[in-house]
């Protein structure tokens, strides 16, 4: 249900700030339970109609550089960062940052997000691996980062629920066997696994059962290609839900469309058929208790004398091209901020709430991605199927984590797109077009020869994404400074970001593993890390570059004590009993799993607590003579 954007004076049971994946799921479940929910979304909701989706597709097709935000139109009132904002420094050393994020740390945070209805989940890749049980206690087990106050078992039920909401495709038996993940007895994912790509199968044939050496532990690590769970439509599993099966969700705005992934491989930035899960699909199932107000930028969380949150203040604008807004307030019993790790921290800092621990904005994490690439001896057919369908999982676990950061070795199914701008860069290369206008043009090939050479080269491109776990570091943080504001006058996020030696050492070990794999494959390795790249750094005598994964985490960290964490195990602010901060920002450590499934599980877990809080608030008090703990006794007449 959609209302006019001025809702002053109205009172809701719950206000949710942000209609991304986390906020959308929270609103869905609370609405289903009958609570009146107001969702305030900073961006527009153009994308939730089919014509809006087609407009994004056209924008994507015509954009020269297909970065994650390429399909989505700019919004001056609620700006989003772009990965194109990080540029090489003018003197050739380091980086400079233009655009929405202000960056002044040692290394660039090379990641974007999207401020539009649906949020960053519109251009996520859609991989949904669970975290490993050992990921929840990295400090105790491996001596780095931060432990969680809860563990895998506490999340088991909510993982299953999140897999239902998102619609996960995968093979539980393989996940249990190859990774050791515990599942409830008889549990299967809603859909069968997304078929592994041809490339995956070639790699499995060449590598399964072989092993590579970890230079720091001197241990052999066995290679095994394992299919990855996806939030993407595949063949429904008739055994799901006790034999009731599962119907894949259609595209938002077009019924009976996108019920299967058809392998377009442009998952990031946009799935043309919407077989990939996005939050708009869940919004289509919101009931009438949920009201979405878009173009409403929350500028302040309002707190009363007694520490309770009364509601929020927001700026309503009409035209995303004109940064002019009117300010309104709205009240609720409970406020849930789910505005993305960086934006939530920014909003809390601007509101001066929830920060008695001084941890708001700190511990910013991502999965730094180290890319390696090469040419295979034969055709391996990239660009058929999703961006990645499998990975090598053994590097995620075990005692090597004491020595260096672990990683997930992701098999990229989009050639050298990310690594080297393929296929555009291949065309330019074969046409002899140099990478700088100051260099002379080389020899070109045309016609049939060009086509054949391109087909040969692109068809043999393989790339690996080493996605490393980053440990929580208090110095990696989001701050604000009134001197840096956006067009509506809101403080922009200022980022200070660096990689710890634990991570850098992980990259060293990973690069070594990569060399060994290319050797086993008989491939021609082409990995190169130019020293003038924005993220270039040196470690232990070698140079590296890395990319951001888009997995912003840790900025309102969860813990077991109010002195050193922002939220408790329910993602409830220690400082304000009716303020919940929901999202990846709550995660104290992130393992090597793409974080959104775990985030969704946490969000659904919080919903139960919010539901109970609301019931307590609304249930009239009846005085009883002698309360027995946990049990209401019938009163004597």
């Amino acid at each position, binding site marked *: 249900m959609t209302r006019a954007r001025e809702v002053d004076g109205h009172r809701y049971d719950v206000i949710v700030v942000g209609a991304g994946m986390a906020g959308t799921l929270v609103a869905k479940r609370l609405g289903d339970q009958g609570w009146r929910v107001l969702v305030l979304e900073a961006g527009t909701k153009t994308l939730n109609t089919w014509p809006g989706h087609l407009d994004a597709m056209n924008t994507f097709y015509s954009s020269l550089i297909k970065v994650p935000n390429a399909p989505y139109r700019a919004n001056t009132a609620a700006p989003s960062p772009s990965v194109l904002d990080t540029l090489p420094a003018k003197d050739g050393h380091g980086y400079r940052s233009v655009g929405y994020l202000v960056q002044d740390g040692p290394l660039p945070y090379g990641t974007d997000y999207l401020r539009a209805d649906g949020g960053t989940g519109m251009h996520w890749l859609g991989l949904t691996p669970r975290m490993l049980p050992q990921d929840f206690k990295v400090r105790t087990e491996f001596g780095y980062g931060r432990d969680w106050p809860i563990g895998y078992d506490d999340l088991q039920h909510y993982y299953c629920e999140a897999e239902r909401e998102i619609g996960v495709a995968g093979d539980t038996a393989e996940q249990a066997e190859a990774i050791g993940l515990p599942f409830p007895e008889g549990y299967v994912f809603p859909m069968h696994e997304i078929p592994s790509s041809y490339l995956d199968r070639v790699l499995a044939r060449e590598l399964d059962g072989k092993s590579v050496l970890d230079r720091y532990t001197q241990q052999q690590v066995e290679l095994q290609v394992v299919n990855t769970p996806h939030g993407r439509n595949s063949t429904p599993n008739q055994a799901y839900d006790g034999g009731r099966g599962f119907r894949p969700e259609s595209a938002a705005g077009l*019924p009976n469309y996108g019920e299967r992934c058809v392998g377009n491989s442009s998952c990031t930035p946009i799935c043309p058929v919407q077989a990939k899960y996005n939050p708009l699909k869940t919004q289509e199932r919101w009931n009438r208790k949920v009201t979405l107000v878009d173009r409403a930028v929350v500028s302040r969380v309002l707190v009363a004398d007694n520490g309770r949150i009364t509601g929020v203040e927001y700026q309503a604008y009409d035209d995303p091209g004109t940064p002019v807004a009117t300010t309104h307030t709205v009240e609720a019993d409970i406020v849930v901020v789910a505005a993305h790790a960086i934006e939530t921290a920014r909003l809390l800092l601007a509101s001066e709430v929830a920060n008695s621990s001084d941890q708001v904005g700190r511990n910013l994490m991502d999965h730094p991605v180290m890319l390696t690439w090469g040419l295979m001896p034969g055709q391996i057919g990239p660009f058929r199927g999703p961006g990645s369908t499998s990975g090598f999982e053994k590097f995620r676990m075990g005692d090597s984590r004491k020595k260096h950061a672990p990683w997930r070795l992701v098999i990229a199914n989009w050639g050298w797109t990310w690594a080297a701008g393929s296929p555009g860069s291949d065309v330019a290369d074969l046409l002899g077009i140099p990478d700088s206008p100051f260099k002379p043009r080389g020899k070109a090939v045309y016609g049939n020869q060009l086509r054949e050479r391109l087909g040969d080269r692109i068809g043999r491109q393989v790339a690996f994404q080493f996605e490393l776990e980053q440990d929580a570091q208090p110095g990696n943080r989001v701050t604000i400074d009134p001197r840096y504001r956006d067009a509506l006058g809101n403080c922009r996020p200022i980022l200070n970001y660096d990689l710890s030696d634990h991570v850098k050492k992980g990259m060293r070990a990973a690069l070594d593993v990569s060399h060994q794999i290319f050797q086993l494959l008989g491939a021609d390795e082409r990995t190169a890390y130019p020293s003038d790249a924005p993220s270039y750094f040196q470690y232990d005598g070698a140079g590296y570059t890395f990319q951001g994964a888009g997995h912003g985490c840790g900025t309102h960290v969860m813990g077991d004590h109010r002195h050193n964490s922002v939220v408790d195990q329910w993602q409830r602010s220690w400082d304000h009993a009716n303020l919940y901060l929901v999202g990846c920002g709550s995660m104290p450590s992130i393992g090597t799993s793409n974080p959104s499934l775990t985030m969704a599980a946490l969000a659904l877990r919080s919903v139960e607590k919010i539901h109970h809080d609301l019931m307590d608030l609304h249930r009239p008090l009846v005085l009883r003579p002698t309360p027995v703990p946990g049990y209401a006794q019938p009163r004597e007449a």
Partner: protein
Amino acid sequence: MTTRDLLTGLTGFTDIEAPLAELEQPPFEIPRTVPKLRHFLQAALALEFLTIPPYLTAMYTIRPEANREAWYALRAVVMEEMLHMTLVANMLNAVGGKPVVADPEFVTDYPAKLPYARERVPIALRNFGREAVKTGLWIERPERMEDLPGTGEEPDPRGWTSIGQFYATIREGLVRLAERHPDLFSGDLAHQIGPEDFYNSGGMAFPVTDLASALKAIEVIAEQGEGVPGSIYNPDERLFGQAREVAHYFRFMEIYEERRYGPLDTPASGPTGPAMPVDWAAAYRIDPEAKVSDYPKGSQVRAAAEQFNLVYARLLLLLDRSFNGEPKQLQAAVPVMLELRDLAWQLYANPHPDPAKAARGVHASATFEITRAELTAAAAELDAGVGAAALLAALS
């Protein structure tokens, strides 16, 4: 003599005078034996299939990016025709029949005569335009049902008058036979196609295992086309808990009238909702009676048209296998459908090789012609390992 449908006021076509191909229709009687019932269901399979090439032609002749609303409406209709075909195959398998698809007899030539009708209405492969949409209206028209055939020993001399009547007759036959044959639905369950293998259409594919599921299949087929009686909507909301959708006849009406139905509209009111502009000129014009033999031997258009029919034959073979115990073959059939789309697009984008026709703006087209020769050649290709299955098999 001008043709005119009494209930809807639809008028006929005057441009096609050549003799029309006729689909084989069972005699006008209630099927009283199991073999006769199977014969009826095989005829129903052919009937559902007949609608697909004209709808695909209308859809794929829309110029790129134009008429998107019409494009998605046609797409939804065509997907549901495929569902109907699948449900009929499930019914036929359920009563121990053997669906036949890869057979020249199964595939009609075009222009064909609208089956189960008294009127002479040509069903031709027309480019997107008012005539193509009107063809769809004729096929999907809601009917005032005339009596079912009598129950005498001999076929009733009156003859078929509507598709609805044909399905109502099958329904009647099913109910009667189920009473007398407790083991009527004893077909092999492994032949049934379910939601794992069929997707992206309104409603859903479900196994037919008893009288109830067979009757539900007939209900889906009848009502997705012409609507729940007295309404413009199909039964997906009631039968499958899905969003309410406008039935085929009324979707075509929206395109024809360039206006959507509003929430209060009825079949009698016609569409009174928001305007839905159609750019009738944004389509490749084609010859509705085109044959491969029209294209000069040795020309590229001829080669492309022949290639189209060869791939079309491959699709028929894969569908035949899918309906005969190998439902997973549908996974191989889907990419072939997309290949057909691409081949058809290439043809439509080319001017007709006949200069006189080209001068009138007529383009080449896919002809959907199938003879024994195409099927034999396509079977040989499949045996030789065309497609991805062979590639993957080579890996293991």
